[in-house]
């Protein structure tokens, strides 16, 4: 069956079984290897991507269910050459240990920043709770999210100052 996926703004027509998890299609067919397979059970968040702007576990999302919907992966936020805000913040805070959870963490955090301009500590913690880091770098991850919030405020302030 042909399924048309819209990933990071680009359309892809794929010949797949519609019950295949979106994660497999992203990694195996589209070679977007940011999202990771952690548990395959919706328990760790390593596979987090956005579907129509909301964070979702791609390991439990049948690809047929998201045909024609907006999918965003960590690759859509920036590249190694031009990293996005959260990517820069994660790098600055050295938030990755092995890095396996980080794409999911960033996508999870991005969903919060998209919705709440200036989240407080409690909001950040409650929102990030879904995602696990087996290396235990949660404190650095939280710092990175806070840094991204501060960076964005800085950028906005600078823009307001400029005529």
């Amino acid at each position, binding site marked *: 069956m042909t399924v048309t996926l819209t990933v990071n703004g680009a359309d892809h027509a794929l010949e797949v079984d519609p019950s295949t998890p979106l994660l497999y299609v992203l990694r195996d067919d589209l070679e977007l290897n940011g999202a990771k397979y952690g548990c395959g059970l*919706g328990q760790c968040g390593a596979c987090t991507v956005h*579907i129509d702007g909301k964070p979702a576990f791609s390991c439990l999302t049948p690809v047929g269910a998201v045909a024609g919907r907006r999918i965003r992966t960590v690759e859509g936020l920036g590249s190694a050459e031009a990293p996005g805000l959260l990517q820069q913040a994660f790098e600055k805070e050295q938030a990755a240990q092995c890095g396996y959870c980080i794409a999911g963490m960033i996508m999870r955090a991005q969903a919060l920043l998209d919705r709440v301009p200036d989240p407080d500590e409690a909001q950040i913690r409650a929102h990030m709770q879904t995602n696990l880091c087996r290396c235990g770098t949660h404190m650095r991850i939280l710092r990175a999210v806070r840094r991204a919030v501060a960076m964005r405020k800085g950028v906005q302030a600078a823009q307001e100052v400029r005529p």
Partner: protein
Amino acid sequence: MKRTRWAGRAMGRWAVAGALASLAGVGAFLGIAYRSDLPAVPTPKAADFPPELVSRGAALATIGDCIVCHTADGGVAYAGGRALATPFGTLYSTNITPDPEGGIGGWSKEAFKRAMRDGVSRDGRHLYPALPYDHYRRVHDGDLDAIYAFLMTRPTASAPAKANDLIFPLGFRPLLAGWKLLFLHQEEFTPRPDRDAEWNRGAYLAEGLGHCSGCHSPRNLAGAEETGDSAYSGGVAEGWVAPALNGSSPAAIPWMADSLFTYLRTGIDGRHGAAAGPMGPVVHGLSRAPEADVRAIATYIASLSADRPRAAPKTPSPPDRTAEAAKASPAGATLFAGACAGCHESGAPMMTQGRPGLSTVTALQLDRPDNAIRAILQGIHAPTGPAGPAMPPFAASLTDAQVADLAAYLRSRFSDRPAWTSLETAAATVRKEDSQP
């Protein structure tokens, strides 16, 4: 002219008489409605209470689940402020820490007991029956003493009460006196001599502090629990169906005391499913309550459906009709394979740990699809901590139409009962509620 005046005067007289009569009525009513304030007392000190009394109170308060309603999300325990949605508007729970201003620090034991039994605040105001005083009337005096001791030894929090938001005219509290006149007649619990001690203990806890029928019985238009044959015939709590616990229990496999105990203690039973929605906090409490009390509650509740026919079910084993269901709902079959099978298909890792198969899960046997839809959209939050049963939410990945396809598939595969209708609308309703702040 004369006549007119007379007539006018007569009418005036009738009006005056009518007004007097209704004033008398109002007066009589206010007479019933009026409750005096009880004097504020100096806040008792923690040292005033023997530790055994406090710990007994702690166990009883756990069974009563006081903390659930009287704590806001992320708030201080027992400081109140949780919004309680009712068909009559939103109530906010109050601060029951021993703070003299915002809490019950100035309440004497008598004031506390009056609140628990008559639903009257220390200052004489009527309390709304969201506080289940209709159940607490059954509680023994000594147990109320213990709960008082427990609450008075909690850390104080100075949270002031939040204003309720009720439909007109229910903000006028004296009206509650009328409600009480009609519905508040419960008596202190007396054991049934024809039952053993465990059953009686369970009945005492379930009917009193546990207030199980508060959710598991239907309510009338005035919001009072229906009794008699309707008791425990199922109700609604926060949009979830609270299944019937009497002979009309929809459980695929009848509840026995043992399986109920496992369920109440751990949040899951291999033959019935996991505690979800508002049952989660109940299980959270009971997982910490004295084991013998939880066993007693299980014994009592299981006895309520003892008259349910236990003859062999129509099909020898619980239904699992893969092929028929796939034919009835092919889209649902695809979604199940991609989203659910990793945990719920036989042979999946979770299933080898003794988790219940979907054909025994009560949510799929109910007349209404609400619980199944809520579990799919919102997931299940482990009620007893990280090791408890949990399910991820699918609200972000599945549309309402897809949730409907999936629910239709589940129903036809795992239940013998009639297909659900209006599934997409039901999914949309739940989703809308969730998106409200």
